[in-house]
């Protein structure tokens, strides 16, 4: 069968790439927890974690060790299997999304072999992300339900209805972008944003779809259950949220999956709207350095952009107060979806009449 032509070198290459990406996203997620505390501390005029290691840099490790050694409690009246399945699903879906992100342009080695820095270039890349995100709801819903606790159930229902509502506006805002790129593959979308300036205009999509970007970003906040839309974890109403009954590393998985999601969705936003690994004057840099070094520069550019995005998410968390639940739903259904529809219509009309279907 033609679909399954793979050789050992390819398998090896992909295995290495996948391991590096997994380790990388776990490491970044670990330090995102540290970053969140430091950002909170700075914004509230505190010092933040400073005991474990210099600047508190070993704090994430200490937290991990603490979670591992905590007593594992599974409530008596819970549905045991699903209770365990919940955090596993949350972690699994969080890690799966990174498969379609292009981390750097193709590298051609001296022996003529092309190495792609992307686990899978499927031609529906962005829809894959949507699919995995929509499956991510199961982790939260099942965990909340299986705990057999009213607060957990309420919180998981909030999380799920929030995710479903905002997925619509997110999808519609993305359609406007996809009409311009004409491709669903993240690889194509990034390649179209090559450099920074071409033909008298910016190449990055954020300058072509500013409204779409704002809608997408707002929906990303809601999908990630982050403040100001962190209703599922609203302490004053629901204690802790859907992971109320969890302890030890299962709780750790839920918390950790959230930070992995944060990093990966920042990467996706950067890839879609801020040119991915592209940076100004990249052609000149590519001519000046060796191909391998250029790939490493591209990866670093993408990661630093993504970290910038993560920091933005954190700044917002400590800036805006939490919405009320009906306000959240009203914003999603009555403002964002009509706005996204208008954006889509305007984009379609512009492509048809102004750019003549170019």
């Amino acid at each position, binding site marked *: 069968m033609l679909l399954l032509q793979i050789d050992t070198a390819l398998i090896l290459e992909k295995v290495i790439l996948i391991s590096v990406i997994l380790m990388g996203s776990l490491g970044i997620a670990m330090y995102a927890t540290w970053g969140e505390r430091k950002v909170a501390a700075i914004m509230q005029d505190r010092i933040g974690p400073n005991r474990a290691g210099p600047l508190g840099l070993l704090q994430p490790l200490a937290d991990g060790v603490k979670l591992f050694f905590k007593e594992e409690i599974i409530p008596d009246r819970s549905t045991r299997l699903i209770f365990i399945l919940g955090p596993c699903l949350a972690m699994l879906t969080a890690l799966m999304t990174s498969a379609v992100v292009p981390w750097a342009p193709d590298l051609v080695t001296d022996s003529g072999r092309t190495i792609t820095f992307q686990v899978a270039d499927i031609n529906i890349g962005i*829809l894959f992300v949507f699919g995995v995100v929509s499956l991510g709801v199961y982790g939260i819903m099942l965990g909340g339900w299986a705990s057999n606790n009213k607060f957990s159930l309420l919180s998981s229902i909030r999380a799920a209805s929030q995710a479903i509502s905002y997925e619509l506006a997110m999808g519609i805002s993305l359609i406007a972008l996809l009409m311009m790129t004409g491709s669903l593959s993240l690889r194509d979308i990034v390649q179209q944003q090559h450099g920074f300036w071409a033909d008298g205009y910016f190449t990055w999509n954020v300058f072509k779809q500013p409204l779409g970007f704002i809608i997408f970003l707002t929906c990303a906040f809601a999908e990630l259950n982050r403040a100001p839309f962190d209703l599922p974890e609203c302490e004053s109403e629901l204690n802790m949220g859907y992971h109320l009954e969890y302890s030890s590393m299962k709780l750790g998985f839920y918390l950790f999956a959230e930070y992995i999601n944060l990093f990966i969705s920042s990467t996706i936003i950067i890839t879609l709207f801020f040119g991915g690994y592209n940076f100004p004057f990249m052609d000149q840099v590519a001519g000046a350095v060796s191909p391998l070094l250029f790939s490493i520069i591209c990866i670093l550019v993408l990661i630093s952009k993504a970290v910038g995005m993560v920091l933005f998410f954190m700044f917002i968390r400590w800036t805006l107060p939490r919405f009320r639940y009906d306000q959240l739903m009203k914003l999603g259904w009555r403002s964002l979806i009509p706005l996204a529809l208008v954006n889509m219509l305007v984009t379609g009309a512009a492509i048809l009449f102004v750019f003549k279907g170019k």
Partner: protein
Amino acid sequence: MDIYDKLFWLLSAITVGCALGVILSRNPVNSVLFLVMTFMCISGHYILMNAQFLWIVNLIVYAGAIMVLFLFVIMLMNLNSDVEPQKGQLVQLAGVISGGVLFLVLLAAVKTAVPVGIDKQSLDIGLIENLGKTLFKDYVLPFEISSVLFLSAMIGAVVIGKKDDSAITNETVQ
């Protein structure tokens, strides 16, 4: 038997197993989870035919949206064997007979069907370009009519779900 056939049989076995799990499990939440698994395996079959778009749309729409709503309702009603009314013997018998008859009809339809088979040489038949062209060129009228049908169903659902006017005015007064 090449790797394609092996994958096909493996996926089919899991699909049938999960489908049996849907009807055999006592807990409705487990049933929903088995159904999600079944949809995922069916999506796997789309992958085998290189129909990537159908694969992901099947996942998003069925596993990601419709089954989440199912789970929603089941969780809220909190069904379990204690509160669920048990059906009488006669009703169970009627169910078995009607289900069996339906199965027989399906079997008869499949038996006389001519297998078309997929053309293993044309691998791009399920990709989004071809699907879009087919949908918006050859079948544009049925496609648009069905979308109008969906719209009317949506409006109907909104009208039915809407509270009556007096309740709304009370809410706004408060």
